[in-house]
C-alpha cells in the first residue's frame, strides 16, 4: 500500500447536486479499486493561474488515499475520460527517508578463522596474530567512522564554489 494524493479540478459551471454526485462517484471509484480514502478536501472555486480550456476558474478537490500501485493509473484513466474534469494530478507521498535500508556494515569472518589454527602450529605464535587482528580491526573501525566525515567535507568546498560563481 502506498500513500497518494489526488488533486483534480472540475468545471466551474458544474453546480450543486451534479457536482456532489461526480465527486462521490470518483470517491466510490477509489474504494471500489481497493483504496482507502483518508480524506476528501473540497477547496471550492479558485482562480486558475492560467486559463485551461478558456476557463479562468475551477473547482478544486483534494483526496488523500492509500492504495496499491496499480490504482492511480486506473483513476487517472477515468478522470481523463470525464468531460467535467479539466485537470487532474496524482502524487505519491514519499515515506520518510529513514525507511531506506542502512548500508551493510562489512564483517570480516576470515580474520577469526586464521587466528584459531595458529595456536596448534606454535604456542609462541598466538600474541602476534592477535595483534595483527587488532591492527586489522582498528583501520576497519576508523574507516567506518571517517566515512560520514568525508561526506560532510565537500560542503564548504562547494559553498566556496558557489561563492566564486557569485562574483
Amino acid at each position, binding site marked *: 500500500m502506498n500513500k497518494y494524493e489526488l*488533486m483534480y*479540478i472540475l468545471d466551474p459551471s458544474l453546480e450543486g447536486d451534479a457536482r456532489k454526485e461526480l465527486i462521490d462517484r470518483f470517491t466510490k471509484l477509489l474504494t471500489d479499486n481497493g483504496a482507502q480514502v483518508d480524506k476528501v478536501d473540497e477547496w471550492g472555486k479558485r482562480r*486558475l*493561474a*492560467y486559463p*485551461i480550456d478558456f476557463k479562468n476558474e*475551477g473547482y*478544486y478537490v*483534494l483526496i488523500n488515499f492509500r492504495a496499491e500501485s496499480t490504482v492511480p493509473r486506473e483513476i487517472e484513466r477515468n478522470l481523463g475520460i470525464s468531460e467535467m474534469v479539466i*485537470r487532474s*494530478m496524482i*502524487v505519491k507521498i*514519499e515515506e*520518510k527517508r529513514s525507511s531506506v535500508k542502512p548500508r551493510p556494515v562489512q564483517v570480516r569472518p576470515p580474520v577469526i578463522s586464521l587466528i584459531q589454527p595458529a595456536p596448534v602450529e606454535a604456542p609462541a605464535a598466538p600474541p602476534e596474530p592477535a595483534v595483527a587482528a587488532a591492527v586489522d580491526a582498528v583501520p576497519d573501525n576508523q574507516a567506518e567512522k571517517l566515512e560520514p566525515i568525508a561526506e560532510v567535507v565537500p560542503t564548504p568546498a*562547494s*559553498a566556496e564554489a*558557489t*561563492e*566564486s*560563481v*557569485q*562574483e
Partner: protein
Amino acid sequence: MAEDRGERSGGRRPRGRKPRRKVCSFCVDKVEFIDYKDINRLRRFTNERGKILPRRMSGNCAKHQRQLSESIKRARVVALLPYTID
C-alpha cells in the same frame, strides 16, 4: 598562464564588500518536504515572470532546491502557479 591563475585566486574580490553568505531558508525552518500546495512559499522562489529562481539567487541548498523545483512544477500542472507571466 600560471601567473594569471595565481593572481585571480589571490585577489578573489577585487572590489566591493564581501557578499553575505545566503542560508537555505528551508534548512532554517527544518522543512522535510516541500508541499506543492504551499503556493505562498513557492511563489517567493519564482521571479516576476514565473520562472524558478536559481540557487545563486535563493541561496537554497541543493537538496531543497531540487525538492522546490519539483514542487513548483507540480503546482504548475494543477494551475496553482503560472508557467509564465507576461
